[in-house]
């Protein structure tokens, strides 16, 4: 009988991080992945003479080896710090918002960012400095909360972290209204909203402010060999530690014993693997809907899962041009092209099939000049669909529709930036919610996990992580986890669930 201390379902970011952590604690671990390569969204693909990054726009929390950020520290702990080569990005973003006529480029660095805002508004610098001081307090408070392991002293919280406590329940829009900054400064601070994919009435201010602060203070980076480099670094580490990864191997059931404790998994070929602990790197919708026997799913798990909102469904158009970025007039790496700076208005348009032009577009060569052959350019444009408009697409209409949507986005980008790109396309690939569903199996092609909601945001999820867990021996981590979506969050979530699993094992005496 095959037997492992832990079986990890899914070799996505969370699953790989979880397996590396479990193995480094001396336990045995098997990772089962239904696809033929690791990484989930963290991968790349080859078309013609180009290798395309599949999903990563920028990776936050890396910084330098001398001054490592939280993500680099995590990779170091997992034993892959020296296996990945990082390239630092030069600038934060270029924001183009058509309704307001904005077009400006923002630098990394707290001071430089504040100075750049001085050019937008006379009070810009002052407001940003004020904002940074609030962010700093939020960060310190979150560190304090982490150290207090969920049992903070309320007196310390209120006295030392008063602003944190006051804004902890705020949405982004509530907080910015309270702060009273000029509109252009607020709009600029809202630029990153698409990275979390919830509008300002739903997104937690704490979460969002902490993210902006992390980006601007620490900068961002990309791996030199696309995100596939991170995935293979982790896979290599898992093998070094004696772990097994089986590809083309879908788990079809999580098995439980009479006491309701995990006792194994069943695989797509009908065979079984014995284990007392499963870390599922997939959505609770799939875990409670399909992987567990119905009788093993507690009512509360169904209530919780039903109460949550599926976040953005992914759409990305990938292009390789037969001209250099200079020849094409593409000067920046990271473009946010919005119809409007009002995230609520944008979010609504992103719920429609034909009015969704907003996009985060990366020109990869402007971050990594060696990412494609000389005289060529790789660019990719991502948007989210915030409703299930892709669910009614007919099989025979699918390919035409996806090109229609991609072309509309490309035309909008060309107009907004003042460039002409279409005639220079050498390779193209378009990924839709169907594509993401194919590779990662998430419901409806969701790439952003569960959407941040006023009462289902970062803080609540972290505080209630043990309450959100129902089946002994089963932990769920990754992009649907307590840290919400994103590259650093999904690795961290997998790592956290591995730590909790190790602690479960210790408590159970095995």
């Amino acid at each position, binding site marked *: 009988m095959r037997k492992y201390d832990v079986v990890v379902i899914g070799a996505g970011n969370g699953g790989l991080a979880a397996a590396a952590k479990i193995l480094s604690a001396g336990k045995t671990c098997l990772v089962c992945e239904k696809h033929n390569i690791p990484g989930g969204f963290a991968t*790349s693909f080859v078309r013609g003479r180009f290798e395309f990054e599949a999903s990563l726009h920028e990776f936050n929390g890396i910084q330098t080896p001398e001054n490592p950020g939280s993500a680099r520290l995590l990779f170091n702990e997992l034993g892959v710090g020296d296996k990945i080569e990082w390239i630092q990005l030069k600038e934060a973003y270029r924001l183009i918002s058509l309704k307001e006529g904005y077009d400006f480029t923002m630098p990394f660095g707290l001071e430089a960012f504040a100075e750049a805002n001085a050019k937008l508004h006379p009070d810009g610098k002052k407001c940003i400095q004020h904002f940074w001081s609030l962010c700093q307090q939020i960060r310190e408070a979150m560190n304090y909360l982490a150290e207090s392991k969920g049992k903070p002293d309320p007196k310390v919280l209120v006295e030392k972290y008063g602003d944190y406590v006051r*804004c902890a329940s705020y949405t982004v829009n509530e907080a910015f209204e309270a702060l009273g900054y000029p509109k252009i400064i607020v709009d600029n601070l809202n630029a990153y909203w698409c990275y979390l994919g919830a509008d300002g009435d739903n997104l937690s201010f704490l979460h969002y402010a902490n993210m902006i602060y992390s980006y601007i203070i620490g900068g961002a980076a990309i791996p030199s060999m696309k995100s596939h480099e991170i995935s293979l670094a982790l896979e290599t580490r898992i093998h070094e530690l004696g772990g097994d990864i089986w590809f083309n191997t879908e788990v079809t059931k999580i098995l439980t014993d009479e006491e309701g404790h995990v006792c194994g998994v069943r695989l797509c070929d009908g065979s079984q693997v014995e284990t007392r602990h499963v870390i599922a790197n997939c959505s609770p919708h799939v875990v409670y809907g399909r992987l567990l026997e119905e009788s093993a799913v507690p009512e*509360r798990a169904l209530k919780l899962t039903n109460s949550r909102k599926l976040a953005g469904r992914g759409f990305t158009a990938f292009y390789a041009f037969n001209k250099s970025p200079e020849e094409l007039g593409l000067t920046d790496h990271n473009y946010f092209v919005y119809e409007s700076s009002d995230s609520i208005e944008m979010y609504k348009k992103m719920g429609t099939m034909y009015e969704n032009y907003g996009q985060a577009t990366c020109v990869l060569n402007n971050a990594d000049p060696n990412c494609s052959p000389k005289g060529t350019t790789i660019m990719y444009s991502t948007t989210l669909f915030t409703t299930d408009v892709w669910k009614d697409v007919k099989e025979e209409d699918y390919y035409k529709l996806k090109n229609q949507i991609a072309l509309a986005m490309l035309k909008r980008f060309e107009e907004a930036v003042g460039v002409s790109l279409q005639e220079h396309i050498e*390779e193209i690939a378009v990924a839709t*919610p169907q594509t993401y569903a194919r590779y990662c199996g998430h419901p409806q092609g969701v790439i952003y996990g569960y959407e941040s909601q006023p009462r289902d945001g970062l803080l609540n999820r972290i*505080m209630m992580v043990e309450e959100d867990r129902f089946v002994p021996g089963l932990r769920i981590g990754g992009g649907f986890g307590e840290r919400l979506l994103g590259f650093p969050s999904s690795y961290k979530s997998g790592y956290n669930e591995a730590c909790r699993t190790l602690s479960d094992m210790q408590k159970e005496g095995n």
Partner: protein
Amino acid sequence: MLFSKYPDDIKRFQEMTNDRRRIIDNTPATPLPQTYAVNQLSKALHPNVIPAEIVDTKEIGRNCKIITLKSTSENGRFPYFRAGQFITISARVGDSFITRPYSISSSPYQAMQGIMEVIVQKAGLFSTYLLEEAKVGDKVVVGEPTGDFYYDNIRDRETIVAIAGGSGITPFISMIKSIIEGSDDFNLIVFYGVRTRSDLLIDLDSVKHEKIKVIPVLSHEEVDGYEHGFITKELISKYVPAKYSVFMCGPDAMYNFVTDEFVKLGLDKHSIRQEHNSIGDRQFVEPKVFKLTVHMRDQVYVVDAYQNETLVCAMERAGLAAPVRCKSGSCGFCHSRLVKGEVTTPEKYESRRAADKKFGYIHPCCTYPDSDLEIDVPPFVAGEMI
């Protein structure tokens, strides 16, 4: 204090978790969906493999047949595909389990009705099996339509100039049918190079359509009303409009020659799309035999690997269900881990990702052994189906 707008904000903070508990309390415990519409379409378009049976074989030339497959899957269909793509056919031949790619010659709508046609020309072991032994009623496994050799309305010009050599006409036959049935909408000019009229694999009368023009170019026969010789820039210029995109499918020698002609006409050679040809054997007078250790999940197999053959050939001969799709290194379906040993991947078939090379991953379909080897290979589900 930065905030004072909302006087109850501390209370709100204290109630956050209770608010969430109440929301969960008030949500019904409805059973969760087993599947989702987007995921279902995804599965219909990309089923990975489809069980099928041979329902017709028809000789259309010397050592050349159209083989018609019918889906025997639950829904009785093949996925709608993009004309120009290929499928794989897997079957057991003696003790071997073999998978080979074939360009589709039928149309996307036919696929939805459960029919796929491929043109098989005698080349190696498997095509010989399909031509000489396979019969109506035989069960095979079809690998889903794959490849990026198709018209793209964003990337390509409105006119495609197709260069076909011999059975390289196959993907263009699919494109012709696709235009006629309305699945595709572009102008197609096909220069079809064959030795003599008897080598033509299509009935020219069947392709009369305002958007389609097929120009046979006979290399070994001079006949009135037919072009003769090679596909040169003069010949091309005679038929093509000012703006067009080029697709080629045929032997490598044709690619080299005709590409030069297009470059003379001012085209960027990178804009020309050439369908990948399958890799063949390496030449050795007396090839060595190496020991190949294959891990598939927790199974371990030790098989012979001839120095002149790819690792996929070695696994297939031993009856292992190796994952195979393109046989040209381009699709990544056979992505495997090289645990130990020395190998060679010819530059022409090198489509691995940069990180694959850095961390020691290979495409066994285009990798030759240079020593005893140990590799970790994902199993191919087709092996469980026949």
